[in-house]
């Protein structure tokens, strides 16, 4: 495990990939690796990119990465897609949009399923960001689909959160419903070559005036590669502002707090669901609840008491 971590720090792509897999599978031995990894993380600028399906996030991220590469910066991309709650499987197709990056050794792209995580991003995504950071990536982009509360939590992991919309009333409403308006550090109106782009920008600005929180709005056309330079300028400005005001530290603290809780919860869950002795006693408690002998809260007390022992 230590060896794997050392190799990852040196930039060995197989080691990086393997560590991320271990994080995803909830392996407890990951701790040994993260002991080495964590101190070396913290340098990278973590950018969250979210928005409802179909707004062109992946294409935009690809263009951003290409520009970063032109500037000599290395990039890590974590693309999170929903895992089916019914089958437990996932179709991870964001990479398709990133083919131009496929042969660049300084770009690492990892597709991850949400894996049944009901709210927020799983601990594994935090680990993936740390690992990529420690391996030397200057920029890390986390892509998630904004569908409800779950992915609003991208703000907990990102230093800078970019919310992407496209012109067209439907998407705008969806974005509002998804609660994505409040979390944006930067708005991007993508596919801005389409009709309605101007009115979308205006709607955004009006909404911001009402909530009295003005953030930059950038128009892009990712497929044409337009507007991306401007976006990166805003992203860089934001990062600079975070550093200057000390807000960066606050956000990082929030990230680690969320991550800590995630990891703890993950371990607890694992104990309840996976470990033999607990499974049995939990199973027994559930039977008693179903039979009406015991109420769920009292049962929970018993479980916690058992875990804490």
């Amino acid at each position, binding site marked *: 495990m230590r060896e794997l971590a050392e190799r990852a720090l040196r930039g060995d792509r197989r080691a990086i990939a393997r560590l991320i897999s271990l994080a995803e599978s909830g392996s407890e031995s990951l701790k040994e690796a993260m002991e080495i990894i964590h101190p070396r993380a913290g340098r990278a600028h973590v950018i969250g990119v979210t928005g409802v399906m*179909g707004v062109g996030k992946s*294409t935009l991220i690809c263009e951003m990465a290409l520009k970063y590469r032109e500037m000599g910066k290395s990039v890590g991309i974590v693309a999170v897609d929903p895992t089916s709650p019914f089958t437990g499987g996932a*179709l991870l*197709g964001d990479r*398709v*949009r990133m083919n131009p990056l496929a042969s660049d050794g300084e770009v690492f792209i990892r597709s991850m399923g949400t894996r049944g995580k009901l709210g927020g991003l799983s601990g594994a995504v935090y680990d993936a960001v740390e690992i990529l950071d420690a391996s030397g990536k200057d920029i890390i982009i986390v892509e998630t689909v904004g569908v409800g509360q779950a992915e609003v939590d991208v703000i907990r992991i990102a230093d800078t959160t970019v919310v992407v919309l496209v012109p067209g009333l439907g998407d705008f409403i969806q974005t509002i419903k998804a609660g994505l308006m409040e979390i944006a550090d930067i708005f991007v109106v993508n596919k801005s070559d389409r009709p309605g782009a101007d009115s979308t920008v205006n709607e955004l600005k009006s909404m911001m005036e009402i909530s009295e929180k003005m953030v930059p709005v950038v128009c892009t056309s990712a*497929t044409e590669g337009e507007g991306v330079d401007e976006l990166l300028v805003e992203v860089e400005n934001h990062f600079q502002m975070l550093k200057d005001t000390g807000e960066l530290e606050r956000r990082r603290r929030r990230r680690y707090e969320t991550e800590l809780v995630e990891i703890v919860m993950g371990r607890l869950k694992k104990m309840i669901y996976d470990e033999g002795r607990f499974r049995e006693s939990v199973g027994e408690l559930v039977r008693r609840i179903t039979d009406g002998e015991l109420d769920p809260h009292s049962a929970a007390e018993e479980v916690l008491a058992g875990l804490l022992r």
Partner: protein
Amino acid sequence: MYDRKELESIRERERRWNQERVKEWLKKRPERAESFRTLSGIEVKRLYTPLDIEDLDYSEDIGFPGEYPFTRGIHATMYRGRLWTFRQFSGFGTAEETNERFKYLLAHGETGLSVAFDYPTLYGYDTDHPMAKGEFGKCGVAVSSLEDMEILFKDIPVDKITTSMTINGPAAIIWAMYIAAAEKRGIPKESLGGTIQNDILKEYIAQKSYIFPPEPSMRLIVDTIEYGMKYVPKWNTISISGYHIREAGATAVQELAFTLADGFEYVKAAISRGLDIDKFAPRLSFFFNAHNNFFEEIAKFRAARRLWARGMKELGAKKERSLWMRFHTQTAGCSLTAQQPEINVIRVTLQALAAVLGGTQSLHTNSLDEALALPSEKAVRIALRTQQIIAYESGVTDTVDPLGGSYYVEWLTERMEEEAQRYFDRIEELGGVIPAIEKGFFQREIAESAYRYQQEVERGERVIVGVNRYVMDEEIDIPILRVDEEGERRQIERLRRLKERRDSSKVRESLSRLKRAAEGDENLMPYILDCVKSYATLGETTDVLREVFGVYKEPIIF
């Protein structure tokens, strides 16, 4: 169509039949399934009677062959006057090898040529391009320059025989090569007859051999339609295709609807350019699939003719020839099995028969080995003979539209038209064909149908003989066509020598003139012809267009 009193008495009789006779039989012997459905999911009744078509008007809805709405056929005498063209899609390896296959097929009775190109050619890459590695000649013939085209048609009377070329992204360039090669032999373009597939919309939807984005691709297509109208009047500059849409997993209804939607889109684009619909419409052609459900396919073809005629009238066509739907059919490749390959001959026979009873103008029958490789000589010969037996031995060609008037077939024709219309409305709601493509509408419908079909097969609800029933352990023992691997090297060498021989300054000039014209809005055909005649390669010419037009990236839909 029927007398009201008679209908009433039939209705009464049917009621009694259902309540008595049918009930009796169902008790004795329950039917083999809960319901019987076509591949499009249309439920098929136990019996069809005049009641099912009581609202149809013979003259208005069914009509006479050669007359609006052409349900029964576009020509008054159909196969009594002239049989469909036996046109076998072929190509592999080098131009020489394919030229031989053409000659073989012509000697065995084929009456029209059809060219299959290899993947690099389809994407506008020369054989020496890095992406072409390992792909040379594997699924069609490699044509990288005018020189290859000249070899491909050596000794073939292109002024007497028509050639269909399955090419889309670089269609204009390949067509230019064909024209130039003929002109070099003293055959003027006015006498050239044939087809280029040139249907980019279905590439985005199904076949995926697109190059440029939709807008410039449509421009190129209208350029070819316009050029053909003026200078190559016997040429069909587009073959609006449903075959590939079907192969990608669509149902018969989807094939019908999406193909015609594409067709109307092209017509609208040409009209926007200012072209006279009655001048270009007669040279639009279609290409359909002939799949397994016999009657559904026949109904599909009949519905297609009627829908097209009606739609073209609405778009302003006045001449009769503008309303004709002329189509080529290919039997369904996706229905062929790798298991017990010999039995594919039977599948192909039934599918071909459906195409004939559906009134196709031209037909390709698949070979029995195509689930394994490209057709061997023997296999393609059997495929050709299939058509010849249907044509000469079965008697179905002795009368026009023999299934016309069948209660089932007329009902099904009507149904398919309705279902297609429903799709037309959906597409309109989405803003038209191109917005629908960008939203992934077609791709989603097709992916759903493909998945559903596969699940039906897995559950045994859809029987495929040899695959999920009547399976056997077998040693497949049929000759497999091998593409000569050396050919790739020889082709690369040929290209190298061509580039040495030719006048490079002429090539550069013609390419740069093409670039300028592409940036403007002139018709590109004359410029492409110049490039091709100077022996600029396919790749060099396509690259110029790639530079100006950009390349297309597809939305990923499962």
